Structures are given as structure tokens and as C-alpha cells.
């Protein structure tokens, strides 16, 4: 058994990489997979907060790389799901504390014991991003339907192509069907037309995400949250299932929400 390393990256900041990593980790673990979520954003760690595990951190990724602890000691078991672990980033160091080779080595050590290793990339295209992408078998690019975010996603896809990595897959986050319908926001087809890569998920803008990120309880645990459902669907697509996309067109009313959930 060898784990698949999936790096979640975006180029632009604030599009939801960390939220996506946490939720996919939860969704894959809910599906019975053994998962490690690794925070590669050294110096600006967040994944622990979003997963609600901040107060359990003793050792971090930099401690592992610099030999101050064993890998197992830095792995924090999720409080709800026994097959989900977090490897936190260091908050007091910067990206140069870890090299791309270190990332490959750490991931290789984990491969035999897990099904999925999710790496949360920092924003940008510099060292931190290079660290995060180095061990990746698959890459998921997160973008929002905004021109700037799509531009940065396009840049990342170009960089990955130049490096000879497999074509990444796309997650459109914070999508507002109503705005797209009115033409005030890029539609999913506009985004795909520019980026021309495979779409594996559309996550609607959902207040449940803000609440859950602040509480440290990923929305994927919430049966009712629309965004949680979207993340669970993405997890199933990652596992190779053919899941149809949610009907997001009439998400304004409660009734149509129920209808779209039942249709899943």
C-alpha cells in the first residue's frame, strides 16, 4: 500500500487552500481512508487552527526535518476521526527551514502507512510553493471565480507543465451561482475555458465554512452544509468515483436546496 501525495495549491492567497485541505482530509477519512494533512506554509501556519488541533501541537515539520523529533511525534491525531493526522508547520521559522528534498523524504516515510497525504501549499510561486509541490503525485489547484485568482492559477499550471508534472486538477471555490447567473461573476465555464484542465469540484460560497473554520470543525463533518457536501463529493472523485456535480443553480431557497441535496 502506498499513499498518493496530493498537493493543494493556488498561486493567489485567500482562495481557500487551507480550508480545502482540511475538508478533503476530513472527507477522505470519513470515507474510511487513512489520511495525513501536512501544512507546508511554514511561518504562517493555519491548517491546525482550521482543523481545531492548535492546542495539541508539540513538535512540527521543521522539528522533524531538523531531527529534533521522530516523524510520529509530530503527527497529531484528529480528535474526531482516528484515521486522520495533521503534521503542523512551524510558526516561528520561514520557508527556507525546509527544502523540496526534505518534503519528498518526509512524504516517502509516510507512504507505506497511509492512503492519502494532503499537502497544504502556501500562496506564491517561491520556495514554499516549490517545497509543497516537490513530493506531489497529484496536484489540485484551488481558484475562486475571480479574474486575479484565475490568472494566478493559470501561471501555476504553466509552471507545473514546464516542470513536467502531471496536469493538475481544478477546484473552484466560493462560487456564487446567483452572481454568476447575473453575469457579475465568472461562471464555471469561463474559468474552465481559460484554464483548460479537469474540474474535480465546485464549492459554493457558504456561511457554514466561515463558522466552521473559526470553530475548528471542518464543514465536511456537517451533514447539512452545502459546502461540506461539495467537499465530500470531491473526496469521492479523488477516490475515483464518478460523482455528478451538484445542482447549484437554484440554491437560494431552502426547498431547492433540499431538492439539490436529494438529487445527489
Amino acid at each position, binding site marked *: 500500500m502506498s499513499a498518493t501525495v496530493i498537493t493543494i495549491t493556488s498561486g493567489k492567497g485567500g482562495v481557500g487552500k487551507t480550508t480545502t485541505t482540511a475538508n478533503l482530509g476530513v472527507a477522505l477519512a470519513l470515507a474510511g481512508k487513512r489520511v495525513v494533512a501536512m501544512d507546508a506554509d511554514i511561518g504562517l501556519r493555519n491548517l491546525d487552527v482550521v482543523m481545531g488541533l492548535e492546542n495539541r501541537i508539540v513538535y512540527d515539520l521543521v522539528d522533524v526535518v531538523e531531527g529534533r523529533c521522530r516523524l510520529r511525534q509530530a503527527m497529531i491525531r484528529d480528535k474526531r476521526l482516528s484515521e486522520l493526522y495533521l503534521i503542523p508547520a512551524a510558526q516561528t521559522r520561514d520557508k527556507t527551514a525546509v527544502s523540496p528534498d526534505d518534503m519528498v523524504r518526509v512524504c516517502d516515510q509516510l507512504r507505506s502507512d497511509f492512503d492519502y497525504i494532503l499537502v497544504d501549499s502556501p500562496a506564491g510561486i517561491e520556495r514554499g510553493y516549490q517545497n509543497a509541490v516537490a513530493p506531489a503525485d497529484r496536484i489540485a489547484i484551488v481558484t475562486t471565480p475571480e479574474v486575479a485568482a484565475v490568472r494566478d492559477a*493559470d501561471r501555476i499550471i504553466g509552471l507545473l507543465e514546464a516542470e513536467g508534472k502531471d496536469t493538475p486538477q481544478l477546484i473552484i471555490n466560493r462560487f456564487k451561482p446567483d452572481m454568476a447567473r447575473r453575469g457579475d461573476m465568472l461562471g464555471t465555464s469561463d474559468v474552465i475555458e*481559460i484554464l483548460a484542465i479537469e474540474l474535480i469540484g465546485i464549492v459554493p460560497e457558504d456561511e457554514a465554512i466561515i463558522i466552521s473554520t473559526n470553530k475548528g470543525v471542518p464543514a465536511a463533518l456537517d451533514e447539512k452544509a452545502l459546502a461540506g457536501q461539495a467537499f465530500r463529493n470531491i473526496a469521492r472523485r479523488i477516490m475515483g468515483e464518478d460523482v455528478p456535480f451538484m445542482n447549484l443553480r437554484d440554491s437560494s431557497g431552502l426547498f431547492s436546496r433540499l431538492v439539490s441535496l436529494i438529487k445527489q
Partner: protein
Amino acid sequence: MISIKGRQDGLLVTFDKEHDWDAQIAALEAQLDDRRSFFSGARLAIQIDQRTLSLGDIQDLQARLARRGMMLAAVISTSAITQSAARHLNLATDLSDYRQPATQTEKDVVTPRPEDEQSAALVRRTLRSGQKIHHPGHVIVIGDVNPGAEIISGGHVVVWGRLHGLVHAGAMGDDSAVVCALDLSPTQLRIGSHIARPPEEKRRRRVRPEMASVWDGRIVAEPWDSKKRH
């Protein structure tokens, strides 16, 4: 006096032994300024055989290049003094070290070779944001040119796809160059010494092949019409 050659990874400038250093630098500057917009952004290596250059000489050259938006990447010399000065400045001293870092997309840059000036570069993929094609001859793209991508061509540019990035055709001053695309909606279009940007208002126009050229001192885009003589 000097020769400029294009290589996979940048320009190689070879200096001869006979001429005075300052005279050769002046000749190099003149050549670079001649085709300023074309050379801008390029990486450059110099080959100077056994000539001895001081740290100051190299720094002076770096500053001259930097003013033109170019970067000195390597100094190839058989002189130990020159080599150590170059290493001190973190420059490569060997053509094999003179490589692009793998994460840079500048390997997409097709560097100029004088003999290429009439030839065309064919790019059979989509150019994404941050990717750049630099070619002294014509450029043909089969694929899209996304916003944030750049094509700098000495000749004509043909895009068999959507052109949403920046294109400079006739970049060495040729106003007779044309730009054709199946969907011509660039961020900015330059032909020779002219610059145009599309109208600000977003009109939902019918997408059809168009050709842009300079007409009466302005860049004009017209629908492609095979019945008309272009």
C-alpha cells in the same frame, strides 16, 4: 568585433582579442539599443577568452545590462582572475552551469539567431500566464494565448486560438507586421512602434477571426475575409 548568438538558455556574446574592451562594450551597447524591446528581459553570457576582467569591470557591465532590462548570467574566460571575479558575483563560469532554474518558464524563450530572422517559431500548446515567447522571426501558436502571456516577435504573429495576452509583432521596428487570431482580444497589441489596447467597454461581440495591422499610423483590427485581398 563582437558576435551575439542565441542559445537555448539565453544569448552568448563573444568578444574578440584584438579590440579594446571599452570599444567592444560600446559596440555591444549599440547593438542592444538597436533592438531594445527585443533584447529586454534576456539573459546573457559573455565569452572573453584569456582577457582579464576585474570585479569592477564585470559590475560595470552588469549595471549597463541592467539599465536595458537584461541580466548577466555567465562569464566564460580562461583567465583565473576573471573567473574568480565572476564567481565572487555568483555568476556561472562555464556554459554547462549556465542553465535556467527548472521552475522558471523562461525556457520558453526562443532566443534570437540572426539566421532565424526570416524563420517562424511554431508553438503547439497554450501559452499560460507568465510564459513568454521571444523570437526574431514569425511566431505561430496553435493553442490559446492566455492573459498574462507574452509574445514578442520580429515578424508576424498568427494565433490559431484565442489571443488574450500581449503581443508585439514586428518588435524590431517593422510596422508592416500583422497579427491574426481566431479570437483577437489581446490585453494589449503592439505592432512595430505602435501600441493599441482594446476598447474598455465590454461588448458581447461575435467571435470571429480577425487580423490587425497598422493603417494610417494606427493599429486597426478587421474581420478576416478571404474574399478580400489582404
